[in-house]
């Protein structure tokens, strides 16, 4: 399946490039945009893995929601500061070394791990199964998650509200 192979490499390059941009660009606003790109690329990976539902969720929630919130936050802080925030980094070398070492560690493991390489046949649409699982065995978890989200919402409101 060369189409998948090509797709994978393209998406991989985009993902890595935009990720690097996220952590390297000096402009915070740009970083957020690059993050959006990276998230979309991840969504594409989900597509490659034949999970369209997750792709949708990724786009809607992650790329849509998260990025929007961050953009709002940046604009808010900029308004408060009254100037554009420059995104600077420090100890680049240290960070690079540690990150590389961690990658080496993980990769080392992956190489040794006896992974099931053969890809099973085309997956059926998992959406229905996911739906059943969410209201079946994972119902309690789902409810807890709902509580968490509400709590987070309230918490965020409380923190951000400031003193009146």
């Amino acid at each position, binding site marked *: 399946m060369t189409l998948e192979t090509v797709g994978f490499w393209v998406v991989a390059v985009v993902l890595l490039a935009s990720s690097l941009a996220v952590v390297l660009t000096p402009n915070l606003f740009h970083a957020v945009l690059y993050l959006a790109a990276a998230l979309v690329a991840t969504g594409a*990976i989900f597509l490659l893995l034949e999970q369209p539902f997750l792709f949708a969720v990724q786009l809607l929630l992650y790329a849509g929601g998260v990025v929007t919130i961050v953009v709002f936050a940046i604009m808010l802080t900029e308004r408060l500061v009254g100037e554009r925030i420059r995104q600077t980094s420090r100890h680049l070398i240290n960070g690079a070394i540690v990150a590389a070492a961690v990658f080496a560690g993980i990769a080392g493991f992956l190489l040794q791990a006896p992974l099931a390489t053969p890809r099973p046949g085309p997956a059926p649409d998992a959406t229905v199964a996911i739906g059943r699982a969410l209201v079946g065995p994972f119902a309690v978890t789902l409810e807890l998650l709902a509580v968490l989200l509400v709590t987070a919402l309230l918490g965020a409101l409380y923190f951000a509200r400031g003193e009146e």
Partner: protein
Amino acid sequence: MIGLSAYLVLAALVFSIGLFGVLTRRNAVGILLGIELMLNAVNINLVAFARFNGDLTGLIFTLFTISITVAEVAVGLAIVIAIFRVRRTVEADRLDLLRG
């Protein structure tokens, strides 16, 4: 044929890049972005494993992770804004209230 390990290596790379961001960014928002990348990498892993093992659980967990991430970002940013209001900075290395 793209094997499982390719996805995993890709995820590891993204994870490391995210880690790099977390370690080096000075701005609290930047750090948050790094964290997003790391979580994203985790999601890739989960989905890949789910796909290759034919197991639904990974997918469900991805959903959960995404939702939790959203919550985390919201709270994180709220905290950033709150801190900013008090300390007039979002520079992570100036925020050392927890210093022993």
